[in-house]
């Protein structure tokens, strides 16, 4: 069987692959782009005309708009009736593999876990959904109480002294922490501190965020043998210019850096701050507290460990936690409680002010709070243990499969691990990106390969969270085993995958060339003219 890279329109000779039974066939609606469904003059009656008395009293309001600011050509939005729009988006939802319908064990660093439906339901109640953020505090005591109670629990879980949920994503939280670092050093007249140290197996935001905030970034690499960055390397990077250290802990590789306690001491002695990215908190929850080990700042992703739904990529919350000395720099407002009443405090004179609007994604605070309540401290510990047991079970089973290896085999792994298909690639020509597409033909979500830089060749980074079952894990492993077998026997199946998903392999070419890139339908019409 041939394994050459196919070009657009050349799939027909491989149609037989679609007939190989995998136990799964995604819905294929061939749903057009909504503009292709448009019918001139279709309309929906959503909002009423203004009352007759209003119209006659105010007259032609549009004439008040100065001519140069009046829209001449109506926006070329599609025109469809409600049932057609419903069907269109319903079909598109059916062509999306959410956590609830697919097995999402593949998506490492994402902590795909079940989001309890009751929490979504509660967040939709009008006592939250119809609340305006600027209402008098007396009318939002309930939601402030939830935010404050959540803050207490997050402080407890992290060993930090104060939290803000204003950042609307993990990277946004890391950015806020970089801004706090900047404000802290400036407040001490220590402007020469312009370097942040991070590690290549920390999430890229630990490099991108301080860089956006104006810092120079020094990036250390994990040791080939240990997977740690090593005290010597860290010491060599630290200087009087060190503003801080920004690390993901545990790393995206599942390795917990055995010398992190030492790094923190070294950075503190040099006058820098330590900010821990705890996006990978799930497996160490109740077993490790960033504050206790010396972190000055940290963040949790409420949309990961704390179960708020990923929402197709947000709404998200990067809840940032700080030690008391840094509280004064937090974005405003901070929720406070005086024993009888909850209050939004804007009076933090050294605050970084705002990194986003209002108070953050308040509904995520409610959902995370409800989840912690439902779990109890006992359940939180149990969840963390399962994240770790499930992952180690997955490691054991995947390593039994031909062609699959693991990075840093001598190190134990916590919530996830980085595997490598280097051997499989050498022996079959099938690499990780091919393999990744083929597993989706079996009805599971694709896996996360690796963030850049890719240190481990042909990487695979799954994460088996607390809410997956042993049966899910066995199914996932069985799929890997079958795809490995296919790679050795008929690599063409794998290299031309997917065969049983909503669509076939994407042609990447127009996505990489700015001259050809199109992000809107109007641009497509223009560029295709």
């Amino acid at each position, binding site marked *: 069987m041939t394994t050459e890279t196919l070009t657009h*329109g*050349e799939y027909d000779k491989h149609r037989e692959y679609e007939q190989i039974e995998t136990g799964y066939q995604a819905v294929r609606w061939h749903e057009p*782009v909504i503009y292709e469904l448009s019918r001139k003059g279709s309309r929906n009656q*959503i*909002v009423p005309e*203004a009352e007759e008395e*209003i119209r006659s009293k105010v007259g032609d309001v549009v004439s008040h*708009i100065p001519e140069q600011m*009046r*829209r001449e050509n109506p*926006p070329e*939005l*599609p025109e469809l009736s409600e049932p057609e729009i419903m069907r269109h*988006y319903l079909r598109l939802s*059916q*062509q999306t*593999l*959410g*956590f609830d*319908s697919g097995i999402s064990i593949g998506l490492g660093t994402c902590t795909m876990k079940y989001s309890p439906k009751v929490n979504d339901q509660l967040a939709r*109640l009008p006592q939250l*959904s119809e*609340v305006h*953020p600027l209402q008098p505090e007396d*009318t939002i005591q*309930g939601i402030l109480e939830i935010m404050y109670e959540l803050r207490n629990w997050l402080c407890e879980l992290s*060993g930090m002294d104060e939290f803000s949920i204003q950042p*609307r994503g993990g990277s*946004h939280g890391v950015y806020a922490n970089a*801004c706090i670092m900047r404000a802290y050093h400036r407040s001490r007249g220590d402007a020469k501190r312009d370097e942040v140290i991070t590690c290549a197996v920390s999430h890229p*935001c630990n490099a991108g965020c301080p*860089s956006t905030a104006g810092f120079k970034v020094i990036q250390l690499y994990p040791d080939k043998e240990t997977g740690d960055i090593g005290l010597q390397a860290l010491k060599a990077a630290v200087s009087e210019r060190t503003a801080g250290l920004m690390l993901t802990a545990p790393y995206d590789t599942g390795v*917990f850096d055995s010398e992190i306690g030492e790094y923190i001491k070294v950075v503190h002695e040099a006058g820098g701050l330590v900010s821990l990215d705890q996006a990978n908190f799930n497996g*160490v929850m109740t077993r490790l507290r960033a504050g206790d080990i010396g972190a000055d700042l940290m963040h949790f992703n409420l949309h990961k460990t704390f179960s708020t*739904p990923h929402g*197709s*990529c*947000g709404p*998200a919350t990067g809840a940032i936690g700080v030690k008391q000395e840094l509280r004064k720099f937090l974005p405003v407002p901070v929720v406070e409680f005086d024993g009888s009443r909850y209050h939004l405090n804007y009076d933090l004179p050294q605050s970084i002010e705002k990194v*986003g*609007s209002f108070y953050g994604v308040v509904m995520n605070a409610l959902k995370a709070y409800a989840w912690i*309540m*439902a779990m109890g*401290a*006992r*359940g939180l510990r*149990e969840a963390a243990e399962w994240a770790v*047991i499930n992952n180690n079970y997955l490691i054991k089973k995947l390593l039994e499969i031909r062609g699959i290896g693991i990075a840093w085999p001598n190190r134990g*792994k916590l919530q996830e691990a980085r595997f490598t298909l280097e051997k499989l690639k050498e022996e079959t020509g099938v690499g990780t990106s091919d393999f990744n597409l083929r597993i989706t033909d079996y009805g599971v979500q*694709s896996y996360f390969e690796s963030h850049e830089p890719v240190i481990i060749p042909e990487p695979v980074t799954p994460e088996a969270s607390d*809410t997956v*079952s*042993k*049966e899910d894990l066995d199914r996932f492993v069985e799929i890997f085993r079958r795809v490995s077998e296919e790679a050795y026997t008929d690599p063409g199946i794998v290299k031309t995958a997917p065969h049983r998903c909503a669509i076939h392999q994407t042609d990447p070419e127009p996505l990489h060339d*700015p001259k050809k*890139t199109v*992000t*809107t339908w*109007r*641009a497509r019409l223009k560029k295709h003219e």
Partner: protein
Amino acid sequence: MSEGFVHRYIPNSAPGVREAMLEEIGFEDVGQIYEEIPEELRFTGELDIPKEPVTEFEVAQRIKAMLAKNKATDELLSFLGAGCWPHYVPALCDEIIGRSEFLTAYSGADATDYGRYQTIFEYQSMMGDLLAMDVVSTPVYDGTTASGDAAHMASRATGRKEFLVPSTCSPDRLATMRNYCDPWLEIKRVDFDAETGQMDLEDLKGKASSQTAAIYVETPSYLGFIEAQCADIAQIAHENGALLVAYVNPTSLGLLSPPGEYGADIACGEGQPLGMHMHCGGATLGILACNDAERFLELMPSFLIGISSTLVEGEHAFSWHTLWDRMMYATRDKAKSFTGTSSWLWGISAAVYMALMGPEGMRQLGEVNMQKAYYAMELLSSIKGVKAPTFASPHFNEFVVNFDETGKTVSEVNRALFEHGILGGKDLSGEFPQLGQAALYCVTETHTKEDIETLVEALERIVR
């Protein structure tokens, strides 16, 4: 420790599974796995969090009891806007974003998450039509961070050091922008005409220079008036080799000239009015768009969904691996920008909303908002001592009401209104002391004639 502990969210907590799996992996106890964490770093204490799990029934009961302490705008008559606006949310928006496939998806492949990517591409496309701009980003965090992104892009596109903003800009937006501009850009304020609120073009001309990275304009402005000089401001920007960044309210774009037509290079805004409930300010969608020029495209900080084809004739593909190299996900610190999980679910809501409204629906929405706001301004002005609007300019759906001549502060007025079950406009006396005792009122299609008259009658009694 977990003898007999079975939790409803943890399938493997069923009896016997733990023992079997631990045996399979060769551990007697999970504690052995945790030995990877150095002993002195491990937490061994008790957490001050209620120990035992709680049933679903109790969770619902407790949360509902807490939420019952709130009084929402379904019980109160609210005229608050100022960055979070009351608009009717069509049932279809809630229906579609409530689909668990969308609600629980995250970051799958083009083929597994096909629907999610197509929907966001359609969001980008329809937003592009509203804005008359060819490049639209996936939803960013919110309107304030979209403004920050725009400023940051302008700094990198021009290599210049100054960012000019109108003094009427929203202080909250400005606060976020200050972070995003630091240390790249110095923000300079441009004066406004006290009578009309319009940007003072003489002052602008004096401040615009070869140092100017961009001029930022808001229309409708934070204070509700329509900035009429956008085209002139664009010209001043471009004459100085600077960019025009326009912050817009998407609900106004059925009526108002879109940023792509008066020369904006980058557009931004808050998309919450397009099918999102207010959620205490939590349901936000940052709109970010730019002209189709390579130098802007490559500076976009966020994910872009591009359209492509597949191995099969006639099949569309949509992918977020679009110009991937520009982002921190490819080049880490070299990207000098950041992004990540943001607000896509609201992009789905906005797509449904824009599709439902269509061109005529957007025009009508804008018109009804203006009609009701004008009706409210007219009636409010008839109250002795009350002036609405403060600025002699056209307005969209927000306007400044001045209470100076009533002898009462906004705070007093709002407390009295609350007694009538009414939430008055946002008190501006702290943010804009030069406007006196002034409040920012918002009137949309959700306000009936009776609602407006109820407000006016209450105010008449209060200021009498």
